[in-house]
């Protein structure tokens, strides 16, 4: 293996984890527990109860939809924080002055984000199922794990693009909240795509999470992973497109900033 | 009666570290501080970072309860009669925080005028006078976020004076201000002094303290190590002269030898851009320059100057001995 490849791998894994811990201040338990473990359960409960009150779908529908959709909170916020957060610590310029491979640098930062997002969704699904009394068959869990991993990765792809945009707006949290809201409405977490107006459903199909939520629902309902490979493939493709757009946008922002000195906040 | 009496003030903090196994650590920030401030004087509290200046001030302005000891302002106890104390003191700290950025200077002052219960019909005139005093007349309608540090600092002072306090606390007011702004600030403080205001001032700048203060106390590691007028401090510590020698490398290893020379009271090294300047305090009437230079034999030397001690020399000696 070439030295450059090893260096890129080290930036990818070691650098990714270090910067994740350094910049994602939510790992503090006083923040992590309320926002990552408790809030999603309540989101599940809120929509499951609205669903009961409106009498449109069963609890399992809302449980899966919201557990997977909530992965977008860690994916979007953590990705934005680990990249755009460097503006606040005034370290982005220093990082970009290093010769490190940019793709390895940014993708490396996304790996811990993906793992964390997947964990949050799984936790929500397991605890939410207990609270609502929804039974998920033991045999379904490997498939669920697979669908959630794809969902988390593809949503982090969107997070990468959003992080690039976040470098240019004042309040990154606001941007992340808005993207979260768009996903909540459009990705079919609480309203099935075919119950939406057609234009909304087509928006949903080009967003991450949409296909993974559908796949996860089918797996919980008894399908094998093999039956949902098509959905998962489309999910991965959507996420991949956003990730590539994100890397291109980051490169663009980097070039622009060298030209116009727009990177650091004063 | 003194306007402020502090008696054996102490304050300790407990900090915990570690997530699973909590370690508790007790640190004593102020270890028994006693002093008085008389009406109409400017009292300087000097000391290095972390010496306990701000902790002492916070106990006096009722933001922090002393662990033990007591303090009173105009006869009101800072613990038991906190609200009476608050009515009679003003508090201004350095840096650019402590203002509502998105409000105009005028709105900031109006808000605090309400909080200090300045009667409605007096507010307008009072705010006008203060804006004049701190040189912000005409800028009062602008939002604070566009103000320079110096302007913010002067606005802070106006805020602290709204209710015409008997005692004004200025905690490092010149922190981070450029020389011109700092000069304007000193002028403002000097004019408060001529108006007979009582002020407790902390600062890092010795010439500032020398220029403004009637009396100075030096605090080191939570304890007062000296107190007196600037002139007394200069005399008390270095009734003698000071020798400054620019050196170029290796001076640290010779400190022992320099200190061993008779009549040398202290020797400190001041690292500057190119040279390391050795500052040696000598007993008065002694001329041991040759002996000191002999102790430095073998290392490259530059300029050698003998001069009168400044307050800064006194300060450095006090806080580093």
């Amino acid at each position, binding site marked *: 293996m070439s030295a450059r490849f090893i260096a890129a791998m080290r930036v990818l894994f070691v650098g990714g984890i270090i910067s994740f811990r350094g910049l994602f201040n939510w790992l503090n338990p006083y923040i992590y527990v*309320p926002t990552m473990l408790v809030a999603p359960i309540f989101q599940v409960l809120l929509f499951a109860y609205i669903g009961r009150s*409106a009498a449109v779908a069963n609890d399992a529908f809302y449980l899966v939809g919201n557990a997977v959709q909530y992965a977008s909170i860690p994916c979007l916020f953590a990705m934005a924080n680990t990249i755009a957060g460097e503006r606040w610590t005034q370290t982005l310029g220093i990082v970009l002055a290093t010769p490190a491979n940019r793709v390895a640098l940014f993708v490396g930062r996304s790996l811990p984000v993906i793992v964390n997002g997947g964990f949050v969704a799984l936790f929500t699904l397991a605890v939410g199922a207990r609270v609502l009394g929804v039974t998920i068959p033991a045999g379904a869990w490997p498939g669920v794990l697979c669908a959630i991993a794809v969902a988390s990765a593809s949503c982090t792809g969107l997070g990468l693009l959003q992080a690039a945009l976040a470098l240019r707006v004042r309040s990154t949290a606001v941007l992340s909240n808005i993207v979260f*809201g768009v996903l909540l409405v459009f990705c079919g977490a609480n*309203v099935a795509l075919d119950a939406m107006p057609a234009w909304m459903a087509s928006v949903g199909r080009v967003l991450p999470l949409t296909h993974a939520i559908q796949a996860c629902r089918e797996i919980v309902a008894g399908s094998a992973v093999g039956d949902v490979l098509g959905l998962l493939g489309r999910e991965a493709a959507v996420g991949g497109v956003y990730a590539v757009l994100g890397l291109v946008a980051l490169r663009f922002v980097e070039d622009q900033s060298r030209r116009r000195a727009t990177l650091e906040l004063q | 009666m003194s306007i402020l009496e502090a008696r054996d003030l102490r304050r300790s903090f407990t900090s915990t570290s570690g997530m699973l196994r909590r370690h508790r650590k007790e640190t004593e920030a102020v270890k028994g501080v006693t002093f008085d401030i008389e009406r109409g004087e400017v009292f300087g509290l000097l000391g290095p970072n972390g010496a306990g200046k701000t902790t002492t001030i916070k106990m006096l302005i*009722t933001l922090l309860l002393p662990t033990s000891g007591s303090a009173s302002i105009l006869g009101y106890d800072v613990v038991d009669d906190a609200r009476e104390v608050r009515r009679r003191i003003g508090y201004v700290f350095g840096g650019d925080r402590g*203002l509502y950025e*998105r409000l105009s200077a005028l709105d900031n002052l*109006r808000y605090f005028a309400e909080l200090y219960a300045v009667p409605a019909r007096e507010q307008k005139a009072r705010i006008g006078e203060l804006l004049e005093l701190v040189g912000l007349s005409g800028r009062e309608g602008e939002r604070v976020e566009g103000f320079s540090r110096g302007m913010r600092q002067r606005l802070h002072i106006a805020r602290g004076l709204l209710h015409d306090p008997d005692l004004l606390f200025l905690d490092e007011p010149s922190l981070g201000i450029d020389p011109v702004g700092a000069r304007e600030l000193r002028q403002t403080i000097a004019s408060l002094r001529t108006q007979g205001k009582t002020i407790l001032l902390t600062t890092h700048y010795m010439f500032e303290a020398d220029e403004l203060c009637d009396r100075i106390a030096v605090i080191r590691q939570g304890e007062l190590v000296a107190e007196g007028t600037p002139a007394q401090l200069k005399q008390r510590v270095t009734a003698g002269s000071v020798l400054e020698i620019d050196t170029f490398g290796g001076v640290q290893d010779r400190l022992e030898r320099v200190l061993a020379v008779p009549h040398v009271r202290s020797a400190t090294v001041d690292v500057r851009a190119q040279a390391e300047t050795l500052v040696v305090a000598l007993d008065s009437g002694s001329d041991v320059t040759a002996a000191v230079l002999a102790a430095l034999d073998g290392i490259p030397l530059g300029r050698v100057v003998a001069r009168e001690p400044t307050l800064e020399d006194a300060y450095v000696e006090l806080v580093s001995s």
Partner: protein
Amino acid sequence: MTGLRSAVRVLVMGWWLQLKIVAVNAFDGVLNIVYPLFFATTALLMYRQSGSPQALVYAALGAAVMGTWSAMATSASGALQSQRWQGTLELLVSSPTRMALAILPITAALATVALYSLVATLVWGRVVFGIEVPIVSPLAFGAALLVTLASLATFGFLLSVTVVRYRTGWALGNLLEYPGWLLCGFLVPMDLFPTWVQWIARALPPTWGMDAIRAAASGASPWRDIAVCGALGLGYAVLGTYLSERLLDSARRHGTLALT
């Protein structure tokens, strides 16, 4: 008497200046309106599937009031923290004015801003979903709204004081958003919950405010609900005032007022 007059002046002036501060921060303000709209939209899409016009009116009103809760829960819990960041918390405490009189205007301003979110959501429901909410007794409706917002302000006051020593108070506020949405009867009728949960819901002023607003809109008498809502709000104000003195004493003891 002068004490009362100056207290009223502090409250009114504080409210007005805080409102100015919030109004300047337009980007965050937009989020306050837009964020609940995502949830309102989702809820309306869900209720629309049920095909009942009454259910949609129920959801439109509930979604509108829901936004006021989140504006309060999230902002109030961070309100004192942001004063701490600005370095003004120490200045507020070191002034001779009672802490309650300095903080209550902050949450009152937040409640005023929450009114925007409420109106925006009603307009959204009307324009996007074509839901017309009939308001049979506008006077009672206005009174119900006012009391709801006032009690929300005092609840927010209590909240902001409670979390003053908790440096990540905003995370706690975000955490309160969902339970409030769930429990206060905005979009889920209370009888779907177990009795012990209903008791918690009854302790929250918006639960009664929501009932009062629905009653006024439909022409039923809202006055009993308004009275309970107002009384709860008053209770929270008293509790908040007591706690503000207690907790500030403790902050003075532990030296946690400043950021540094």
